[in-house]
C-alpha cells in the first residue's frame, strides 16, 4: 500500500481526500461520520458573520441531471452557507478537532466584504484548533446577490484585498476558493497569490439551470412555481474543473501555487487526474452526497494501487501531467494517425460508420456482412469513431511512422513541426 499521507500547505492529513465545504460538512454529527469512514480532511461548511444566521428555502434545494438508470451525473444546489448559529458551529469544530487531531479541518468563511467583518470572524475561529481557512469566493447563488461569494470571486481586486486582510489578521494557512463563473481562471488565481494566499481551491459550482419543468414551465428545483440558478457540480463538471486547475498549474504567473482540486471527483481515477494536473489534494462533495461517506475507501484503495503499480509516490504524481499541457499551436502537426478497427472485437453496430459518414469525413467503409474498415485516404484521425464505439479498445489510433506517406495528403511524415512554423501561418517564423 502506497503511503497516501498528505501535506497540503502545512496541513497534514492521512490521505489527500478531503470533503469540500458543503452540506456533508455542516455539523459535528456528519463530520465525525466522515472521519470514521476514512476521509483525510474536511472543509467545514461556510460560516458567516455573527448574528442571526441565514435562512434557506423550505422547498427543494437540489436539482439533478441523470443518466438512464437515474445515475446522478450532475447536481445543482441553491443552498446558502450554514444556517446554524456561529457559536454552535465553533463549539462543534473545536470538539471534533480535539477528537481527530490527525485529520485536517479547515473552516470555510464568507462574510461581508469589509475589513472589520473579516477581522472579527478570524478572531472568533482562532481557538477552535482548526488547521486553516478557506475563503468562499465561489458560491454563485443567493449569497452573491448580497455581494458575497462569487460576487467577490469575480473581481480580482476584491480577492486580493480580502486575502490580504486574512493574512494580516490570521496566522492560519489561507486557501482561496475560486469561482469558475469567470472568463479566465488565471486572473483570480493571480489576485489570490498577490494577496498572499497559501493556496487556491477550485472549482466552486457553476451557475446553472439543471432542467425545466415542462408542465409548470419553471426551472428545477422549483419553489412554489419559480426557480433560480444554482451551483452545478458532480461528474459532469469535472472536465471544466480539470482545465481550470491545469491553467493555473502551468501559467508562469501562478506556477507553484498550491491547488486543492475540486469538481466532480467521484473515483480514485478522477482524483489521480486532478493530482496529475497539479492539484496537491482533492476535495469531494457530490460523490459523498450520492453514495455516502464510504466512497472514500475505494478512492484510497484505488489511488494506492495505482501508485504501487506505477512505482510512484503521491508527490511524484502531483503535477506529473502539467508539462504535457500545452497550447494548440505547439502540437506536432507531423503526428499522423489513422483509425484501426479490430474485426475480432467489432460487434457490428455501425455507429462508427454513421458518425463518420454523416458527421465527419466519410472515411469508414461498410462492406458486405457489416464489416467496417477505415479508408486511410479519407481518415483525418479525428477520433470520433473511437469515441462513439461502444466496445473498449475496438477502434484505436495507429501512428504512421516517420517517412511513411499519408494517403490522405500524399505527404511524407516528417519530424516534429507545429503551427508556429507552418507555411499557412501568416505569422510563421522560418525555422532556423
Amino acid at each position, binding site marked *: 500500500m502506497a503511503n497516501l499521507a498528505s501535506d497540503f500547505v502545512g496541513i497534514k492529513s492521512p490521505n489527500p481526500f478531503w470533503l469540500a465545504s458543503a452540506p456533508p460538512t455542516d455539523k459535528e454529527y456528519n463530520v465525525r461520520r466522515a472521519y470514521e469512514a476514512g476521509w483525510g480532511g474536511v472543509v467545514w461548511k461556510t460560516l458567516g458573520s455573527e448574528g442571526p444566521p441565514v435562512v434557506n428555502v423550505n422547498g427543494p434545494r437540489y436539482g439533478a441531471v441523470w443518466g438512464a438508470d437515474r445515475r446522478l451525473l450532475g447536481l445543482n444546489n441553491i443552498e446558502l452557507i450554514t444556517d446554524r448559529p456561529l457559536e454552535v458551529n465553533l463549539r462543534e469544530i473545536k470538539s471534533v478537532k480535539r477528537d481527530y487531531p490527525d485529520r485536517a479541518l479547515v473552516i470555510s468563511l464568507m462574510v461581508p466584504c469589509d475589513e472589520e467583518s473579516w477581522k472579527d470572524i478570524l478572531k472568533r475561529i482562532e481557538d477552535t484548533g482548526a488547521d486553516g481557512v478557506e475563503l468562499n469566493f465561489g458560491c454563485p447563488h443567493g449569497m452573491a446577490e448580497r455581494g458575497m461569494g462569487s460576487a467577490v470571486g469575480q473581481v480580482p481586486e476584491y480577492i486580493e484585498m480580502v486575502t490580504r486582510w486574512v493574512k494580516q489578521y490570521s496566522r492560519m494557512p489561507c486557501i482561496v476558493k475560486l469561482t469558475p463563473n469567470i472568463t479566465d481562471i488565471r486572473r483570480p488565481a493571480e489576485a489570490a497569490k498577490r494577496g498572499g494566499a497559501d493556496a487556491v481551491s477550485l472549482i466552486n459550482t457553476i451557475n446553472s439551470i439543471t432542467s425545466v419543468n415542462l408542465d409548470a414551465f419553471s426551472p428545477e428545483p422549483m419553489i412554489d412555481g419559480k426557480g433560480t440558478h444554482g451551483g452545478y457540480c458532480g461528474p459532469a463538471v469535472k472536465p471544466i474543473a480539470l482545465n481550470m486547475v491545469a491553467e493555473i498549474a502551468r501559467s508562469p504567473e501562478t506556477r507553484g501555487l498550491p491547488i486543492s482540486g475540486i469538481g466532480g471527483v467521484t473515483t480514485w481515477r478522477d482524483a489521480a487526474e486532478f493530482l496529475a494536473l497539479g492539484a496537491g489534494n482533492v476535495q469531494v462533495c457530490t460523490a459523498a452526497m450520492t453514495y455516502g461517506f464510504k466512497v472514500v475507501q475505494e478512492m484510497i484503495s484505488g489511488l494506492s494501487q495505482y501508485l504501487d503499480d506505477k512505482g510512484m509516490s503521491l508527490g511524484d504524481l502531483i503535477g506529473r501531467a502539467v508539462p504535457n499541457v500545452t497550447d494548440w499551436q505547439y502540437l506536432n502537426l507531423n503526428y499522423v494517425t489513422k483509425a484501426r478497427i479490430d474485426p475480432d472485437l467489432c460487434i457490428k453496430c455501425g455507429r462508427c460508420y454513421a458518425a463518420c459518414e454523416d458527421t465527419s469525413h466519410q472515411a469508414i467503409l461498410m462492406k458486405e456482412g457489416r464489416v467496417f474498415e477505415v479508408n486511410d485516404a479519407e481518415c483525418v484521425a479525428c477520433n470520433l469513431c473511437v469515441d462513439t464505439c461502444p*466496445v473498449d479498445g475496438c477502434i484505436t489510433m495507429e501512428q504512421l511512422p516517420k517517412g511513411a506517406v499519408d494517403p490522405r495528403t500524399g505527404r511524407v511524415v516528417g519530424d516534429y513541426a507545429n503551427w508556429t512554423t507552418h507555411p499557412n501561418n501568416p505569422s510563421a517564423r522560418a525555422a532556423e
Partner: protein
Amino acid sequence: MSNSMLTPGVAPGRLSPQALADNFTDLAPPLDRHEARVAADRCYFCHDAPCMAACPTTIDIPLFIRQIATGTPEAAARTILSQNILGGMCARVCPTETLCEEDCVREAAEGKPVEIGRLQRFATDTLMAAGVHPFTRAAPTGKRVAVVGAGPAGLACAHRLALLGHAVTLYEARAKAGGLNEFGIAAYKAVGGFAQAEVEWLLSIGGITVVTGQRMGRELTLEALRKDHDAVFLGIGLAGVNALRAEGEERAHVRDAVDFIADLRQARDLAALPVGREVVVIGGGMTAVDAAVQSKLLGAEHVTIVYRRGREKMSASEYEQDLAASKGVRIITGAAPVRVLGGDTVEAVEFAYTAEGPEGLTLTAETFLLRADQVFKAIGQSLQGVPAGLATEGGKIAVTGPGRTTAPGVWAGGDCASGGDDLTVTAVAQGRDAAMDIHAGLMGAGAR
C-alpha cells in the same frame, strides 16, 4: 374438488385455484417504467440495425427504443404499430431469441441482447392502456374487399385496407376473431384477455365488418366473394391436423394438441379443465411445447414430449425447449410412435427409436413404452378448404410477391400461403403487404 396430481386418468381440478392462477400468470411480466428506461438505454442505436433486418415486419427498433428512452412510449408504440398493427401480441409471442434479439449486437458483444420484445410490449401496452388508436382512416374509396380469416394475417390485412379507406368485410369461421392469437397460443403468453382486447382495439379504426361462422367451402365460396368484392384476401390458416398414423390412434383421450390449447384458452375456469396424470405430447414444434407446458401447469404429474428427430431439428426454439424443461417437462428425441395401447381409453404409447440415414428417417427395432392417460398430437397442421382454381405449392396456397395467388384479384397470406415461417409476425407482414398491393391495384397506377 378432491383431485390431485396423483388422481389417475384424465381429471379436472388437480391443483388449487390459487396454484392454477400462479401457474398461468404472465410468463414474462411487463417492464415497469424505470425498468424500461434502463433496458432501453442498453440499445446502441445501430446504423442500419441488424435487429430491424431480422424482424419480418421491419419495425424500426432502434427508433422505438430511443423513444422509450426519452420518455415517449406512445411515440414508440406508433413507430411499432405503423409497421405491425399486432405489435402488442408479437411482443408477447414472437420467438425474439431467433429474430431481432438473436441479431442484436449486444448478443454478439456480451450474450445478452437488448430486451426488444419486452420493450415493445412496454410501448404498445402503454398506448393501448390509454385507449388510443393512433391511426385515422382515410376517406372512403368506395372499394370493397373481402378478407377471409380473422387471424393475424387477416387482421393485419383488414386494418391496413381500412386505414387506406376501403370497406372491409372480415369473415371468420369461428365464433370470434383472433385466430391463433385467440385460440392457439399458450395462455401464459397473452394473459388477461389480451388477444380479444387487441382485436377490439384494432377494429376501432372503423370500416371493418366482422362476420363470424363463415368457413371457406361451406358458407363461403371464392366465386361469390369475388363477385361481391373488388378484391379477396385469404388468411385461412391451416385448419387440418396431421394424423399420427399409428395403430390405436382412435382411442379416447388421444387428441389434437391445437384443440386442447383452444379449449384451455377459452376455458372460463381452468380448474374445470381435465388433464391426464400421465401426458404424452408427440411433436417438436411450438404447439407441442405449449400443450406440454400447459398440461404440466394444469397439474399433470408427468409430461413427456416425444419428437422423432434430433433436438436440433425441433422447430420449437431453444428458449421454448428450456422453458419446457424448467416447468418439468421431459423431452425425448429420436423416437416415433408405433402403437397407442389401451382399452377404450389410452393407457400407453409404444415408441420406436429412429435412425437417420440416406433414405430418410427409419424406425429401429429398439422400442419403449410410455404410460399415458392423455396423448396430444402436435405433428403439424395442414391446409384445408382451398378454393378450386388456386394453385398450391408444398401443401400451401402458391403466392408470388406480396401474396398474389394464381387467381386474379385474390391474395393470400399467413400460414395458408407459401413462403415465410409460420409465425404471427410473418403473417402480419404478409397481410400488410398484400393490403398495400391490393390498394395499389384498386387505386390504379397513381396510388401510393
